[in-house]
């Protein structure tokens, strides 16, 4: 158990130190004021349909803001907000959220049968090969653990439908391409607390 916690702590420390071009966490905090209304004052949301950003992979955050800014990822609120961002602001905001402590699992014990099914789906589709065994991501993939099932469900459906773009070579569009609705529902429950 101590080994697991130590390992998780080591991984968590990795987030905060993600390298990027010229980022300023303090400037990011200031510029991220408008974000807090939806994403929370600590980057942890109260609205289950909105993702927590605290402790997310820095480059993943940058890419999502770039996609929102260009419209490649469609969302009325985010498209409008991101349109105003300069490259520098975008980098600073990403650095800020990446530096925050990650959200705990959403409250409420999951349905054990559904959670187990989600674990099997994740094993079959090899999600851990990019998102790592604890689903906190790597430099290749974002953290997907501890998001609410509502958000994760929508994210996977959007990837499956190619309604949102994947960074790199369409990886998530392909990876989610063959998931069924039941697979997605189960995965969404499992990823709330994959530990």
């Amino acid at each position, binding site marked *: 158990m101590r080994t697991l916690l130590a390992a998780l702590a080591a991984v968590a420390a990795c987030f905060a130190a993600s390298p*990027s071009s010229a980022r300023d966490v303090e400037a990011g905090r200031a510029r991220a004021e408008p974000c807090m209304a939806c994403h929370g004052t600590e980057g942890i949301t109260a609205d289950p349909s909105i993702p927590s950003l605290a402790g997310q992979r820095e480059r993943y955050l940058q890419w999502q803001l770039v996609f929102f800014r260009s419209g490649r990822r469609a969302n009325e609120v985010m498209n409008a907000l991101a349109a105003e961002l300069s490259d520098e602001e975008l980098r600073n905001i990403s650095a800020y959220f990446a530096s925050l402590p990650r959200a705990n699992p959403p409250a409420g014990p999951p349905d054990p049968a559904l959670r187990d099914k989600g674990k099997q789906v994740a094993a079959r589709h090899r999600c851990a090969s*990019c998102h790592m065994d604890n689903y906190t991501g790597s430099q290749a*993939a974002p953290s997907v653990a501890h998001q609410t099932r509502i958000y994760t469900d929508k994210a996977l459906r959007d990837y499956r439908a190619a309604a949102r773009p994947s960074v790199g070579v369409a990886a998530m569009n392909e990876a989610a391409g063959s998931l069924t609705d039941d697979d997605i529902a189960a995965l969404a429950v499992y990823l709330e607390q994959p530990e």
Partner: protein
Amino acid sequence: MAKMSVLKRSPGIAAAAVAATLTLGAGIAAAQLKSYDSSKPSFWQNAPPDWFLGDETEEMKGLAPPVGPATPTPLAELQDNLKKIKLPPGFRIEVYASGLQEPRQMAWGDNGTLFVGSFGAQNVYAVTEKDGKRNVTTILKGLNMPTGVAFRDGALYVVAIDKLLRYDQAESKLDAMPQPVVVYDDMPSYLPHGWKYLVMDREGAMYFNVGVPFNIGIPPTSTAHIRRVHQSGHGELIATGVRNSVGGDIDPRTGQFWFTENARDWMSDEIPSDKLNRIGRIGEHFGYPYCHQGDLPDPKFAMGRKCEEFTAPVLKLGAHVAPLGMKFYTGNQFPAEYRNNIFIAQHGSWNRRKYQGARIMRVVVDPDGKNAKQEVFAEGWLTGDQDYSGRPADVLVARDGSLLIADDWAGAIYRISYAR
């Protein structure tokens, strides 16, 4: 950050994950390795969603292609990075243009416009110079991985995943590019290894790669080769058994086509080597999937074939160095001994626990492929074990004989020049 390598981290997590699994009593271990076998028809009836990535080994678990910065690196930081680049005496490197999203292949227009393709950004750029100042404009948007560009007879050619397009009189229409003519589109639509490099010879024949849409397996029809398409539309397979090639050039001494090739992943950090190849005879088979690096039968897919049956590389370039764009040096600025040498942009590893590459190599070799030697020409874009400050993707000789480098990680183009 990325100083903390995956290798150091994973044993602890793997052990912890196994411990957690036993504690929770779940049936399937979280630490399951990926593996697949595409040699059976049943595979294709239900292909796993990550089939293009490849088998995983315990030794190399956790490796995946790293995601770069989402915005181009600011100029000040680029200049800082360039201070760390090592070059031979007399050479210097500077920023030629910055602020491009994922620039890839470069090509000169007749009037000095530099056209640049891109990887995932869907764009084609034009870099122009006015009153001593350089401007970058996005002249095309919304294309499907338009990595390859070429220029001939006033027209810009762009090759996307499955379309070869021609934009006539491009240089005079940069502000409002014309509708393209579809020159050729008889290509598969696979995205993995489907992005292309475009070379044109004096007669206007177009050379490009069609890569295999996965790591290792029996290539689907219409993949794993270099194709040459004539202006008449007639296409030929001039090289087969080629896994994934994103760079090539015509030897000015002989007219023969040479190309770089990326070898398979998930064998080990050290094998197989990536390759520099020469087409001596049209239709030659370069070994994939049966034989790698000229002398290494594939553990699963050799299927009884012998490496002697195939054409070996001119030079093994190193394992997981990712050689991409290449050019024969035809300029007059560099010292005479550089004439007709090959410069190769190495993009750098992802499937290696300690990345290598991310540099420009110089290859000296006879026209018949003999006596090949390579040395580092420009290096210093690797930071730590698994991160980059830049990743070279292409090289191009400028009119004044300097060498341009496209870096799709930092979003910039550099210029290497020589002064006595």
